[in-house]
């Protein structure tokens, strides 16, 4: 008889492998939700028992008060305002291009360096304080170098956002968004001027400098009932 003696394991047909893989692939394609989380980032102030002690020291002109009442209407610096005007108004407050008396005061970078040098001298002997003061001085000196020795005027302005308990969250976020937009615009313009790129396209180092020069000073006030 002409029997075959060779009896290896028969090869498994892999033709349907692609079908199985396709099936799995389609399952994952359908179930995947590529939801990248986005949001407005905020740093809360540390908790303290006795509150609102320090706000009195800030000069009136350096504060931009935005109130939202429980009907979602805005009161900006004591006057009712439509949300569409808020960004422009906030931008004007943050930049104060004409150095108006009723808009915020500014400090020069060179002044900041002087202050840092004075502190450094004052804390001589105390090791920890010296390290802190030295770091502060270095940061400012480096910032000045990065912007080509230009004496940038840093705004002292703070935007204070206050809301009622009845304000809707949607409106609150819309207002926050407008305020952040005002800062972003200023940051973009500044980084264009010094680095030739919008803020997002700058290197991390450059972004840090811009952040130092234009801090996003939005304060979310302690809760209180402002009615409506």
């Amino acid at each position, binding site marked *: 008889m002409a029997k075959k003696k060779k009896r290896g394991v028969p090869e498994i047909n892999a033709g349907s492998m692609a079908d199985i893989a396709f099936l799995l692939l389609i399952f994952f394609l359908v179930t995947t939700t590529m939801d990248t989380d*986005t949001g407005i980032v905020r740093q809360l102030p540390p908790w303290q028992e006795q509150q609102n002690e320090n706000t009195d020291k800030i000069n009136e002109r350096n504060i931009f008060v935005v109130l939202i009442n429980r009907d979602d209407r805005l009161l900006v610096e004591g006057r009712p305002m439509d949300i569409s005007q808020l960004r422009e108004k906030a931008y004007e407050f943050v930049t104060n291009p004409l150095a108006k008396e009723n808009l915020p005061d500014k400090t020069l970078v060179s002044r900041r360096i002087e202050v840092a040098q004075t502190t450094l001298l004052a804390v001589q002997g105390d090791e920890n304080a010296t390290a802190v003061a030295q770091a502060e001085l270095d940061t400012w000196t480096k910032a000045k170098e990065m912007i080509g020795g230009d004496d940038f005027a840093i705004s002292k302005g703070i935007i204070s956002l206050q809301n009622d308990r*009845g*304000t809707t969250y949607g409106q*609150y976020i819309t207002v926050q968004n407008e305020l952040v937009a005002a800062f972003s615009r200023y940051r973009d313009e500044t980084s264009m001027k010094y680095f030739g790129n919008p803020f997002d396209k700058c290197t991390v180092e450059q972004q840090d400098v811009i952040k130092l020069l234009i801090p996003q000073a939005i304060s979310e006030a302690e809760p209180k009932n402002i009615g409506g």
Partner: protein
Amino acid sequence: MANFKKNTKGDTPAISTASLPDIVFMLLFFFMVSTTMREVELKVQVTMPEASQVKKLEKKSLISYIYVGPPLSAYQATLGSAPRIQLNNSFASLRDIDAWITSERESRDEADIPMMMTALKVDQDTEMGIVTDIKQELRKSNALKLTYSTRRVFENL
């Protein structure tokens, strides 16, 4: 040379599909790796507000989520339709936030604790009162990094 004999027959040779499974597997692995399965089951309705000035959140493992919104219709019979807080998989009250923050911290590396962040996923029609209360609780438990989660929209300038 004999090796370079021209294919004189007119019909096109069949394309080998032997590498097709490899390609498909590659895609499959990509999606398997990039897929993030939802870890919590939402019990509240959350339609997040829209904003354009947003930042992308990096390091998802360091973010703890607080959901606030009206309960889903299945729970409304017992809980009513007033906005409720959801932590992990269950409804919670303001008093639970402190303990929750502590447990979230314990589950992370000690070195990562300063980088931890709380993300508020709040329904846009919720009143700010409850959000303010949550913020105060977070301040008390010293969880100061906060994001208001939003849907990103692009605006024409």
